[in-house]
């Protein structure tokens, strides 16, 4: 076999893989990270409480501040992962859940983002905000421990 021909093929395959992963087209069931604003949001939660918060069932933090939920849009890979793993819902079911909650006057919809950085910035700047993403890019972002772990 001619090794000179194999090298460019490997390079192209590697390059393609990098592009696909970086654009989110190929994505496994990676870990999700819960982040929270420095004001009002506790530094640790258990999974049960986190579920109640993210479904809009718990509406206030212990200090009375309103809970603001920040999620990636349900049609993004991280948003889709979040729906399945945190809510046990499809993206469509999650949108329906929150539309019904708002329509009944019993809660607020999350703020949705297409960019992880925008979500991270929003949570950092919004008192009472809690959000879910894959990786934290800004070291000053506050990561919330869930059941003692940094990732869920």
């Amino acid at each position, binding site marked *: 076999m001619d090794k000179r021909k194999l090298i460019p093929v490997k390079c192209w395959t590697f390059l393609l893989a990098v592009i696909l992963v970086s654009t989110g087209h190929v994505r496994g069931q990676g870990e999700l990270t819960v982040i929270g604003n420095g004001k009002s949001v506790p530094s640790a939660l258990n999974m049960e409480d986190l579920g*109640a918060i993210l479904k809009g*069932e*718990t*509406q*206030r933090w212990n200090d*009375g*501040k*309103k809970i603001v939920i920040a999620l990636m849009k349900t049609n993004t890979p991280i948003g889709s992962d979040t729906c399945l793993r945190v809510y*046990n819902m*499809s993206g*469509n*079911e999650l*949108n*329906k859940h929150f*539309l*019904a909650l*708002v*329509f*009944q*006057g*019993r809660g*607020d919809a999350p703020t949705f983002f297409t960019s992880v950085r925008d979500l991270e910035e929003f949570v950092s700047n919004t008192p009472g905000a809690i959000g879910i993403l894959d990786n934290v890019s800004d070291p000053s972002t506050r990561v919330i421990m869930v059941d003692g772990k940094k990732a869920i």
Partner: protein
Amino acid sequence: MWKLTAKTFIALVILFYIGVNSLWGQKTHIRGFIEAHTSLEDSKVSFGLGEQDLFITSEISDRLSFLGETVFAFSGTSESSFKVSIERVVLKYNFKGNHSLLLGKHHTPINYWNDSYHHGRVFFPTIERPLLFSAGIIPIHTTGLSIQGQNLGDLRFGYDFLIGNGIGSSDILDNDKHKSITAAAHIKPADGLKLGASFYYDIISKGASVHGHDVSEQIKQSLLTASVAYFGKKFEVLAEGTLATNRVNDVLRPHTTAAYLYTGIKLDEHWVPYMRIDNVHFENDEVFFDEENATAFVGGIRYEINYLAVVKLEYQFIHGEVSGDNNKVIAQVAVGF
């Protein structure tokens, strides 16, 4: 003649700045719901436009919010052929945790359907409301003050206690000194499951105008309702029962019972075949409701394109003791935007 002085100009600029900032500072969302349908009845095909529901929510402060629901619908008696009705206007003040005070015009939290679906047809599991609505048994709206709690404790207990203008009142004035009382409670022991019960009491004054009729005697009305709702991954069940008692002079106590059972099977995320059975039964000496015993069967299939667009095809059969049998096939597209 009013003159624009420098001081007035500065004051106007400051007021404008404050106004613009307060507008930008609050989160306001405007949404809408609409439906269109076609039906086959008595060998005649008709096309129809349903209610257009304008839904506005606004976060005025961290604890104060507004909800408004205004419906535009066909009206044969209006010059423009359409009427505008304010269905809900609610100011909500969260005073602690999941507890809130609500002031305004509410959908009376008296049963699951009335408290969940309101005028958003895209949420309805069937094309039309159950018979107990068209029979006028449920006081759909109440203007007043309520206290509400939700998702309390492990069973996710919730309550609504509402005091308001009673039956026969307008949106701006009570027609008598009596206030209606609604007390409702529910639990959500599992995801998708909600069990609820409620009580409604009102004294309807003699002479009050209700559903186009003048009430001839004072009536003490009480309603007891119970509901089971389960909307899961595979099955949907919604059953509600209402016992209404209209008491006149403490002598007559006619009872009315109204119930329906809805079931649906989720074949996948889009397709849901379903059916609903309704029954409304009045006692002979009923003094308030239009006394027509009726049963209904509804069978159909729902295709949920997504959470904002739903298509339904449905067969409806209604048997009324006075009006006889009615068969209808109806298809509906309901959307939210």
